[in-house]
């Protein structure tokens, strides 16, 4: 895995903290639905927000394998947390969506595409690993032989405000995956939060257009240095490592490794890791009819390779134990994804470690296979 790509020089401006609301207002004025971090059920989630007051001001998250807690900060930072259970996937690739409709007529079934008023989203607070995850999903949904129209419609008009990390969780390993913590591209704007305001990096014409309408100031070299120091804080805090050297052959060459039995004894096959993963894309499709049965909607819903019937075929289930299902997930994420999409399916966000109810840590599983490997 290559290290994080170099960051090109971009135009930067200074946005005072009390002017951040003007960014919300500018986006809302242009018809964007702003999605950003907010506190719900004791977690920082991504939801529709309209104001700076919706942000998790003064809160942080503490994470570890199988544990996530909010904790108050000693300052008023607005983006002073890492990542929560949500990812932007739920907006670009909705958990439930209609893909087609069918109506019974006198001439038989008539199939149609559902009307899709794709929301025009502005994502606020996208981390570097999440920018990478969006690019990973782009390859699945936009760059294969078939383009997913639901994802494409949302992705096409999304505006992305990235936020550079200035701290990391013990579950983070973006440096191993070459995805962060610095936001290197794929955004319209990227913010680095300091105590009194933000360094705003302009990444696109659309970003430039928004910034032109805000009250921003020039940045001097001292502020840029401060921002660099703040970002270095995240790098310094990252302790988790995933050795990706030869990982494809390592995993696909060890499909009979005894470690799969070991992890299967712990894994609950609950699907949490796949639901929180920002790149997992599996779905199932089912028909939902009204009471007359004459009007049918074909609905796509997130599915998981950990579900028992995921591999159902000809009256049987191919992966009928947890060992084979965990193996499928991990080898797909870290190995066969490379064959399929030319990139790892893992961006090192650590969500699967945090949200696993029994704290299974994929970096540990890979290390165990590597240690006892051939």
């Amino acid at each position: 895995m290559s290290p994080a790509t170099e960051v090109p020089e971009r135009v930067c401006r200074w946005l005072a903290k009390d002017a951040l609301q003007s960014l919300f207002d500018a986006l809302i004025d242009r018809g964007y639905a702003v999605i950003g971090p907010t506190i719900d059920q004791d977690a920082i989630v991504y939801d529709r927000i309209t104001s700076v007051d919706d942000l998790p001001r003064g809160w942080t998250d503490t994470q570890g394998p199988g544990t996530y807690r909010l904790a108050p900060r000693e300052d008023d930072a607005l983006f002073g947390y890492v990542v929560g259970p949500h990812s932007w996937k739920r907006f670009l690739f909705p958990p439930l969506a209609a893909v087609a409709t069918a109506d019974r007529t006198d001439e038989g079934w008539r199939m149609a595409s559902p009307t899709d008023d794709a929301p025009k989203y502005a994502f606020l607070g996208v981390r570097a690993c999440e920018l990478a995850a969006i690019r990973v999903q782009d390859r699945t949904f936009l760059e294969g032989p078939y383009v997913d129209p639901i994802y494409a419609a949302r992705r096409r008009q999304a505006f992305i405000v990235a936020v550079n990390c200035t701290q990391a969780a013990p579950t983070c390993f973006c440096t191993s995956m070459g995805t962060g913590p610095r936001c290197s591209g794929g955004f319209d704007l990227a913010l680095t939060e300091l105590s009194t305001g933000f360094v705003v990096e302009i990444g696109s014409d659309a970003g430039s257009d928004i910034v032109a309408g805000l009250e921003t100031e020039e940045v001097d070299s001292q502020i840029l240095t401060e921002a660099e120091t703040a970002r270095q804080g995240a790098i310094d805090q990252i302790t988790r490592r995933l050795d990706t050297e030869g990982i494809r052959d390592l995993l696909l060459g060890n499909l009979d490794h005894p470690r799969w039995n070991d992890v299967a004894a712990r894994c609950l096959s609950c699907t949490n890791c796949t639901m929180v993963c920002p790149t997992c894309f599996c779905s199932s499709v089912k028909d939902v009819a009204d009471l007359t049965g004459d009007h049918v909607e074909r609905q796509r819903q997130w599915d998981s390779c950990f579900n028992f019937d995921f591999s159902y075929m000809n009256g049987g289930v191919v992966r009928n134990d947890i060992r084979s299902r965990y193996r499928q997930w991990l080898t797909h994420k870290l190995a066969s994804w490379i064959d399929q999409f030319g990139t790892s399916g893992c961006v090192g966000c650590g969500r699967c470690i945090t949200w696993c109810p029994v704290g299974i840590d994929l970096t540990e599983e890979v290390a165990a296979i590597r240690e006892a490997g051939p």
Partner: protein
Amino acid sequence: MTSPVALPPVVANPWLADAVVIREMVAEGPGVTTFRLAFVDEERRDSFRFRPGQFGMLYLPGVGEVPIGISGHCQQERTWSFTVRAAGNTTRALSSLHVGDTLGLRGPFGSAWPLELCDGADLVIVAGGLGLPPLRPVIYDVIANRERYGRVTLIYGSRTVDALVYASEYDDWSRRGIDVQTTVDRADLDWKGNVGVVPLLIERLHPFVHDRAILFTCGPEVMIRFAVRSALARGMRIEQIWASMERNMQCAIGLCGHCQFGPEFICKDGPVFRYDRVEPWLKVEAL
């Protein structure tokens, strides 16, 4: 400065099925029906083409969608054949339809049998049970272009005599230069043919020109594995063997993730694979 990503233009909805009407239903055996389907839309009727080995998604609104190999002649005019066994909810519901009913069809999808490699080559077609329908378009191509092929053999097995599909066509295929060999696991009193599994027939096969022979196989995975083992024992190389694979499929367009088999998506990389590409994964249990 540029936009963060280059995005494709507005695309057609790959989930949208075309309406087709059932023109004919032919009972092939217990629970097995061949549907002849015609597009309702005139334009689609003229534009639809498939290559032997590809499949379509048959959709019954309110019930579900199933991947079914296209089993007719690829030069067929106006109607398209699909042979379906009533096995699950959707295929059972399909089997209870009548001529004149409509349903949905998406496709064609997937890879095709590499007929272009068969020029002047001997061809061995090995099928088990409902593995024959996706190979029937190959047989029809052989019949239509018999001079292009060398010796052509069909080895076809099923559990019982009445489960051999397209039985009324075998004599015609034989007359047109295909060596048709059938076998059943359990014979009935009238059966005068072979009894036993398909690989046994491969072992007894006439000496074919090994370096100019191609083997196509489709059927239960266990049959495929043993058929290939027999063919390799007869001196074929793995690169001469092609197999059609099956897995759970819900989208047929590489987006739903269900059909993954190691690094392959059966729906878009397959279903027809050169055997050396899938052989490593076939050895792994519960992959």
